[in-house]
């Protein structure tokens, strides 16, 4: 691409959003490594991870530190979306609408048949919105079940053993489901899809190449052009 140097960039993530993303990423990595090592404890790699974390006790510390970080960043996110104006704009953009279902279906049809024009997406694509809400609800459910598992002594004083077992299976099953979504879907989206290869740098620099931004969020781009013209 010869004109690469001349292509401008567009802001995609604010400084606050990047910070939230970074903390969320670190928290999830801590939780995923220490959690999967527990779920697959009989595997050699799990033993390696646990000894790397300083043994069974160390693994507990890593998992619980990750959990506290995740809860803090979740609380911050919920408060910020209700308080800050820029966050509110993002929050509004992420609200699922019937149009998202239509756009998602249109994407499927277009990819299958190639007929007509490629669907145009707004600030968040329907797929991004879907992932966001999966992770949002996932955090809630993981957090709630995690709190029960945190102290068996306290939770067993309040709930029967069968409830504890229920929370345990929900926690571990849902975690693995969320891990698959993040690993396959999110990483594909930001590293490969839409010309992002090798990586969409927005999570570090906050900015995206103009041509890619336009290709990925054409609906928003057109609205922005109109806005600047008017």
């Amino acid at each position, binding site marked *: 691409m010869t004109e690469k140097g001349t292509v401008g960039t567009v802001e995609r993530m604010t400084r606050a959003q990047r910070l939230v993303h970074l903390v969320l990423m670190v928290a999830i990595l801590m939780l995923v490594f220490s959690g999967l090592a527990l779920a697959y*404890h009989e595997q050699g790699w799990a033993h390696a991870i646990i000894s790397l974390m300083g*043994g*069974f006790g160390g693994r507990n510390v890593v998992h619980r530190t990750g959990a506290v970080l995740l809860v803090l960043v979740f609380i911050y996110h919920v408060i910020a979306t209700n308080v800050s104006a820029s966050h509110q704009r993002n929050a509004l953009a992420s609200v699922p609408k019937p149009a998202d279902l239509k756009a998602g279906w249109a994407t499927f049809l*277009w*990819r299958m048949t*190639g007929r007509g024009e490629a669907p145009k997406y707004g600030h968040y694509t329907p797929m991004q919105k879907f992932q966001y809400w999966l992770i949002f609800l996932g955090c809630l459910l993981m957090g709630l079940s995690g709190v029960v598992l945190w102290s068996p002594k306290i939770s*067993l004083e309040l709930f*029967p053993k069968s409830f504890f077992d*229920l929370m345990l299976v929900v926690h571990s099953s849902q975690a693995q489901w969320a891990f698959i979504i993040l690993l*396959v879907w999110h990483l594909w989206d930001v590293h490969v899809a839409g010309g992002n290869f090798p990586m969409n740098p927005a999570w570090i620099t906050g900015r995206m190449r103009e041509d890619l931004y336009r290709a990925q969020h054409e609906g928003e781009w057109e609205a922005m052009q109109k806005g600047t013209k008017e």
Partner: protein
Amino acid sequence: MTPGRTLSTRSRRALLALAVALAAACLAVGTAAQEDVRCLSCHGKPGFKKTLASGKVLELFVDPTSLRLSVHKDKHCVDCHADVSEVPHPNVPQKVNCRRCHYSGNTAGAPQIEKYVEFEQSVHGKALAEGNTKAPACQDCHGDHFILPGSDPRSEVSHKNLPQVCGRCHLEIFGQYEASVHGKALAKGIMDAPVCTNCHGEHTIRKAADASSSVNAGHVANTCAKCHAKVVIMEKYGVKAEQVATYNESFHGIANEFGVLTAANCASCHTAHDILPENDPRSSVNAANIPKTCGKCHAGANANFANGRIHINAKDKSAGIVYWIALGFKILTLSTLAGLFVHIGLDLYRKFRNRKAHHGEAKP
């Protein structure tokens, strides 16, 4: 040597030497046998005993047939009581040392295997070496004159008789064992039931606090699993062999696997010697006793601890809702994965087709 040729002088001498040696051996056996008669002139009298200065009565009668029926049937009194040479004995005869014969490379053909050596490292061997007179030596478990292999049901150390042998010193534990599910099964003649040595080892018995002990907190689960993980044994008695796997998958089991020995092992809940079935009201794992049992570690444990199953197998329908949730998430995760591959595949397909189309347009 060709047939018909007479023996050489050297051969004749060798044969003579052999004959002398044989005669000497026969004579030696003869004298030992004669000595047995001498010994039995006193020790063969039923009721022969001696009262020591301490007031302790030594039963000194020996039934000569007991030795003749034992593995030592060809041995004579002084072969083992080697310090006895005069009658009456000027010194108190010492306790027999089995190692006179049972050492590796011995010419008497006495068996000597690793496990005899292990005894020295065992809790009994160490106590004996330290001069504890109550610590058992070989003959305290194997018997003195009527020693038989453990495989012989008449042997003191046979599977069926062994608990009584250990119980001679370990009285209280023997009582607990007898009343336990294992002890009762043994009394019924069920030879699958474990006796003391199946858990503690034979010559390797070590204190539970010793990390190398088979009953150390780090090894208890594996020791119980020797039988309890075997479906062929467990199904005979209606016990689930999966209890081992469900423990290994539990928080307690995983913590134990990673060396957290404060985490509960089998014996922490089921006890070591008092093991009773769940439905026995005296059992430590009876629902009524669960709060107390869990409370040993989880201070303040209440009835909630008993409200649900302990050995839960999420892969089995018996786990109820836990099974269905695990299955549901498994299906969800696999179909999500499949859906994502379709999503990615379609993305690539469209990109590929469009690139091909552009290429086609560019060419005239």
